[in-house]
């Protein structure tokens, strides 16, 4: 077996497997390296995959992907210690092909996707950790073109014409290649979650769904004084409940992650949904939250970076999408590598088509559109002041306070804004930012 291949893909998450599928189908020799004992074993997320990008790679993927439920009901909840204001949307359309979002376990989904990479001809090697990059001996150690990787196995060097780094949020490879200027705790959030087992009928009844229908609840507030958010997702016979916490705040508030989850689970808006659930797993993972603000250079001589490794996760409050961005950027990285290898130029310039592919598609368009959203959603006002303000307005509006006559909404609002200590100027500015981002 030769110790050189066309393409090495590091990391068998969605980005890596899709890059490998594309490159292998184009006839290149591809090795896909994964440090876990199987693809997906290290991967944790909240719970919903938007997989329309797979239409191209795996037609009718929904007939074979190991999904749990199709999300037909999506709730956005503003939560305080004693109040909850929910916008609840449901549609039958998302329960039919081609579907919208699906809950799935990543150890199942990623493993399935990696199986497609193998079927396409890529060689998947698991239990193999990549420990560094091989550089062209002509250049210096820091700048020479990347010509392969080093693994933790004996005689573990493997050379390739191109390396695609899909090694996730900590991307030791993108850092080693010098693509990140610096990394800062403030760009990341920590996600922790519990997977709680409940009988399927109980879940169906509590969440008001049937068969394979599922629910996605995104929560703003409910994380104490730590900026972040919460989520509840239904699987077939488990419910995932978790929180996403801003690292810099977490440390400052002497409240541990599991205590924040315990607080959310005890909230009266959440507790009845998960009562009696037996804990099956506890997990934690980082999210590259800052979007465009933290994105690295995505190409080096001989290397491309895709998925979370390139901070392509879109984490903008009520949106938490990363798998779809990983799939798309992995595909584009695969295509770019194929073109560059065929053209015989894998220098950063030869790989420049990658940026273009992403700029002209949703990958960077969505990020650009929502570039202000992460900071807004995680701001102190949105986190600590607005939920109570809005919930109080709702409480007073729906309260029947006879013999008092009903107050006008505008007055309630003005009073609650003052009570919450929100300056009008800030409110208008945030509303404008939100409007420009999401609008």
């Amino acid at each position, binding site marked *: 077996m030769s110790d050189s291949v066309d393409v090495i893909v590091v990391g068998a998450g969605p980005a890596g497997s899709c890059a490998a599928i594309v490159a292998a189908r184009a006839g290149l020799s591809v090795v896909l390296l994964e*440090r*876990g*004992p199987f693809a*997906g*074993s*290290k*991967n*944790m*997320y909240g719970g919903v995959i938007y997989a329309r990008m797979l239409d191209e790679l795996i037609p009718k993927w929904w007939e074979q992907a190991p999904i749990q439920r199709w999300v037909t009901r999506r709730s956005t909840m503003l939560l305080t210690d004693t109040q909850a204001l929910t916008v609840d949307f449901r549609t039958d359309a998302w329960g039919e092909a081609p579907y919208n979002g699906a809950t799935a*376990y*990543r*150890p199942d989904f990623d493993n399935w996707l990696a199986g497609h990479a193998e079927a396409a001809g890529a060689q998947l090697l*698991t*239990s*193999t*950790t990549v*420990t560094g990059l091989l550089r062209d001996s002509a250049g210096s150690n820091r700048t020479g073109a990347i010509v392969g990787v080093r*693994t*933790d*196995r004996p005689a573990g060097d493997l050379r390739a014409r191109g390396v695609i780094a899909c090694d996730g*949020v*900590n991307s*030791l490879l993108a850092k080693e290649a010098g693509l990140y200027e610096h*990394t*800062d*705790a403030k760009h*990341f959030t*920590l996600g*922790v*979650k*519990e*997977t709680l087992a409940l009988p399927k009928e109980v879940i169906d009844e509590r969440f008001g769904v049937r068969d394979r229908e599922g629910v996605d609840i995104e929560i703003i507030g409910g994380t104490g004084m730590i900026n972040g958010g919460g989520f509840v997702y239904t*699987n077939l016979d*488990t419910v*995932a409940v978790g929180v996403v916490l801003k*690292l*810099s705040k*977490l*440390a400052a*508030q*002497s*409240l*541990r*992650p*599991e*205590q924040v989850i*315990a607080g959310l689970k005890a909230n009266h808006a959440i507790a009845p949904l998960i009562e009696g659930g037996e*804990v*099956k*797993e*506890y*997990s*934690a*993972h*980082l999210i590259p939250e800052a979007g465009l603000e933290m994105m690295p250079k995505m190409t080096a001589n001989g290397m491309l970076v895709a998925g979370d490794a390139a901070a392509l996760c879109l984490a903008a409050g009520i949106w938490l999408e990363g798998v779809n961005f990983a799939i798309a950027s992995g595909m584009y990285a695969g295509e770019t590598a194929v073109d560059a290898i065929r053209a015989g130029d894998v220098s950063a310039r030869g790989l420049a088509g990658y940026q273009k592919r992403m700029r002209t598609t949703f990958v960077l368009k969505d990020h650009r559109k929502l570039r202000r959203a992460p900071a807004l959603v995680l701001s102190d006002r949105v986190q600590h002041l607005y939920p109570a303000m809005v919930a109080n307005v709702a409480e007073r509006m729906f309260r029947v306070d006879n013999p008092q006559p009903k107050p006008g909404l505008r007055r309630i609002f003005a009073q609650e804004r003052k009570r919450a200590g929100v300056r009008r100027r800030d409110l208008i500015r945030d509303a404008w930012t939100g409007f420009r981002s999401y609008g």
Partner: protein
Amino acid sequence: MAGTRSDWVGDYFMETMAATEFRVHPDAHIVVDGTVCADCTTRQCIVACPANLFVPTTDGGIVFNYEQCFECGTCYLVCNHEGAITWNYPAGGHGVVFRRT
């Protein structure tokens, strides 16, 4: 006597950690240099590590046990003391193994 709230969160936490599978390698993948920690005032790792693996000692040091690590990266990001944490992934095939995440 009923335990305090932080007690039962603690007991429950032990249970949740026990529900997760870790294929522990004999060598530590993360090494904490306690001598650097001795002059650390922020000690953010103690609060932030989701697996609660950083434990302060009475003499101002830190005891760290790598065995139930999620390999998440939080600790090296929140630690602002250069050289306190040497962070790596465990050898291939070892460490945390998720099933329903």
